[in-house]
């Protein structure tokens, strides 16, 4: 539905490096499918917001092409640049950008009121459409309220209603939940997801919060330095990160360097300086290749009984533990490594205790050394 091709956006750097330009978005390519919620995820400065603003038309890319359903919004080659106000997209801003001098109704009615005169709806239709949008976000009872008198969550819904009132083909969401407190954020996360699914909206969601990205999206694109590191379903991004950066940014990971000792189909045996690990991977590595094994701490089981050592079962010593409520984190030293193991709150082993570490198959992901 949305296609992005070879998108480049640079900004002038500091004066000292006059001729260098910072690539905020560096040759980006991706597609967003009809009806899905697509998330751009990454640390601040990775170019996710710039990408979104290029799609919105608020930033002008240097090169590339942006098209929705075949309608070209921007193309450096075809010399097309449709201004933001003619693209017909909906957008929810991080600060909500609710106009403080209008009430709730007027805020939502604004997009309809500034339509070209010929298309502008009649008074009755306008009222109907605004009310429909407000009902969808459950603000219909507050239509006459001054916008500044709303709570944070209500302002968020209002911004959403305003973005939806034109029934745009694509909804752009720029960290819409980051200004809410933790409890409300969780609530709104489900609410947003429900709305998106029920209304069948195609949306692009920008966030730096991995939990949000995993919980809400159909697909996630993890960005770094203006490039996409990995596009996948949330589960795949989490369980099979394709690079050290992705594994590190999403969730917590242990990284263990090693070399491929042998392989049998998709199953590799990796030799590390703390022992051997057996891992399945859909990627190709030749014997002797240097690799990095990532292991999720919640898939490492600790046991105080010391029998049975072999592949994926190591010996170690608990060095420290931290009670985190739902789980207990243990720092376990194995050879030269310090690994993090996350156990449910029933398992709590004091330091120092010799333990057995049992790695579950799904704990692992294999990535080439040096990213």
């Amino acid at each position, binding site marked *: 539905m949305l296609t992005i091709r070879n998108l*480049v956006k*640079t900004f002038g*750097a500091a004066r000292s*490096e006059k*001729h*260098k*330009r*910072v*690539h905020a978005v*560096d040759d980006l390519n991706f597609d967003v499918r009809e009806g899905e919620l697509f998330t751009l995820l990454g640390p601040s400065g990775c170019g996710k917001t710039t990408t979104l603003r290029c799609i*919105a*038309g*608020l930033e*002008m890319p*240097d*090169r590339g092409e942006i098209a929705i359903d075949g309608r070209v919004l921007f193309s*450096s080659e075809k*010399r097309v*640049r449709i*201004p*933001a*106000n*003619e*693209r*017909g*997209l*909906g*957008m929810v*801003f*991080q*600060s909500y*950008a609710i*106009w*403080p*001098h209008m009430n709730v109704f007027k805020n939502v009615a*604004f*997009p309809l009121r*500034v*339509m070209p005169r010929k298309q502008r709806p009649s008074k009755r239709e306008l009222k109907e459409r605004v009310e429909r949008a407000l009902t969808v976000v459950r603000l219909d009872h507050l239509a006459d309220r001054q916008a*500044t008198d709303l709570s944070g969550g209500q302002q968020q819904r209002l*911004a959403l209603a*305003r*973005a939806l009132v*034109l029934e745009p083909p694509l909804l*752009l969401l720029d960290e819409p939940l980051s200004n809410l407190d933790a409890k409300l954020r969780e609530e709104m996360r489900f609410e947003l997801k429900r709305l998106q699914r029920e209304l069948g909206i195609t949306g692009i969601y920008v966030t730096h919060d991995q939990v949000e990205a995993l919980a809400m999206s159909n697909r996630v694109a993890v960005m770094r*330095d*203006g490039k996409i590191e990995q596009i996948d379903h949330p589960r795949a991004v989490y369980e099979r990160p394709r690079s050290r950066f992705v594994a590190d940014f999403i969730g917590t990971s242990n990284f263990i360097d090693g070399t491929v000792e042998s392989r049998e189909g998709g199953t590799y045996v990796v030799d590390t300086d703390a022992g051997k690990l057996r891992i399945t991977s859909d990627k190709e590595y030749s014997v002797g290749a240097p690799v990095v094994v990532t292991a999720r701490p919640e898939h490492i089981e600790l046991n105080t009984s010391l029998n049975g050592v072999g592949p994926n079962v190591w010996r170690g010593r608990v060095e420290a533990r931290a009670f985190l409520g739902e789980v207990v984190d243990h720092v376990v030293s194995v050879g030269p490594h310090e690994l993090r193991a996350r156990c449910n709150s029933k398992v709590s082993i004091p330091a120092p205790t010799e333990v057995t570490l049992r790695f579950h198959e799904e704990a692992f992901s294999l990535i080439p050394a040096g990213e």
Partner: protein
Amino acid sequence: MAAPAVARPPIIRTERLRRLASGRNAIVALVALLVAYLSLVPLGFLLWQTFVRGGHLTLASFREAYSETGLFDMTANSFAFAAGSTALAVVVGTGLAHLVVRTDVPFKPLMFAASLVPLIIPGILHTIAWFFLLSPEIGVLNLHFIHPLTGHDFNVTSIPGMILVEGLHLAPLVFLLMVASFRSMDPSLEESAVMSGAPLRSVFFRITLPLARPALYAAILIMAVRTLESFEVPAVLGLNQHIWVFTSRIWSTLNAVPPDYSTAGAYAMSLLVLTTIGVFWHGRLANRARAYQTVTGKGFRPRAIPLGKWKWPATVLILAYFVVSVVLPLAILFYASTQQFYSPPTHYTLTHLTWDNYKTVYHDPLVRHGFKNSLILGLGTATAVMLIAAVASWIVVRTRLRGRWLIDNLAFLPLTIPGLVLGVAILSIYLRTPWLPVYGTLWILFIAYLTRYIPYGMRYSSTSMFQIGRELEESAQMSGAGWFQVFRRIVLPLLMPGFVVVSVRELGSSVLLYSPGREVLSIAIWEMWRNGQFPELCALGVLMVGGLVVLVGVAYKLGARIGVREA
């Protein structure tokens, strides 16, 4: 992230050409040209008139101007007057601001009422009121307090007297500036000094004041420039005693027959150089101060420091200030307006009051004209300044247009031109431009006021513009609004209350924005003063104060109503 230079693709260039022709750019260009015209033309003209005579570059007018006798006295007077009243205003204003914002002194609302004085009592009325209060022999305070207590009269028609009156009139401006600054200061900065064991006095001088330095410098600059170019006080109190300063000298040179424009120009240039140095110096200091400025824009509710045993002296101070700055001038004006002939209040005069002066004033065509013109000019200028400043500050704050700093500086330029000097320049320009027949019409005043108030309008609107999140405009764009619609429906409505509020509350110098309307009336007052029609003058003054109270009240209401909450 850094990568080798990317050649800007050709698309940008053709795009730019196409966009150049848009209506938005037409407006942007128009405003830029207008600002440049308004600020550069008077300045250029002044330079030309002063330095060029008969087609030659010459310093003759300077030689003539500075060979006048008493020149040294005039310069010394100007500096003494400016320095003294600036110092008085800054010390009083800052002290009161600190008391009100940071301590538990009572009667705080009284101080805010007093801070409105410059808004509601025009300078010339204020000066005349003080003349009635403190002139030797007939001054009420001299008769009833100072003479009985000390055996001498305090002569207000002297340099110390002029300093006192000007300082009192400007103190509220400093007060407002400093209140805004103290309020935006993180109280934890002071609290941590207290926790380090510093006594309150050191906290004030070592932490609070240095942190308020940017605002303090701004206050000092504005006060210094304003006192240098102040005309009312030197004219009312100094002329008869031949205490000359730059402005009164310019006025008398122009009032001579025939008026000597080039000598006036030479004085004007000197004044201009002084104010420019002031502005430049402020810019440097402000830059240095910004380096360690940790004041955030966030609003805090600072903890009030308990004054303890100093509470009662402070209370007396506040009450005394209120009486001196508000009650006394207004009372004497009102009293004088009810007299047949002015004489100091006695039992007899207080029992023989008359409203005749109000009737006279009401029927005076000059006054009626003044009211009408004031209203037209006030509304007209305020609207025009707001529109121009809104577009200009939008260009400066929002666009990445090359040369936008030029617009910023050009709009600031008229600030350095003293009002009287600007008047001289504009007068002479439009005397010589028959193709632009504005001379002798309201338009010439309109142009003068426009020039004069654009720097202030610009200050307020860029301050407000920074406070309006960019996203508010972008979300309107995403809703399908074009540039005009965004500007008309989002930027202007959001800027408007900011204009009112910022001008009323934040930058004390805002008085100036209200001036255009009343200056035409001020002329009427000045004429009456020269003719010795004191009681009628006071009656007009009382009416004017009443009108301004209503105006300021409306402005406050407007500002408070629309989305601009106390930070």
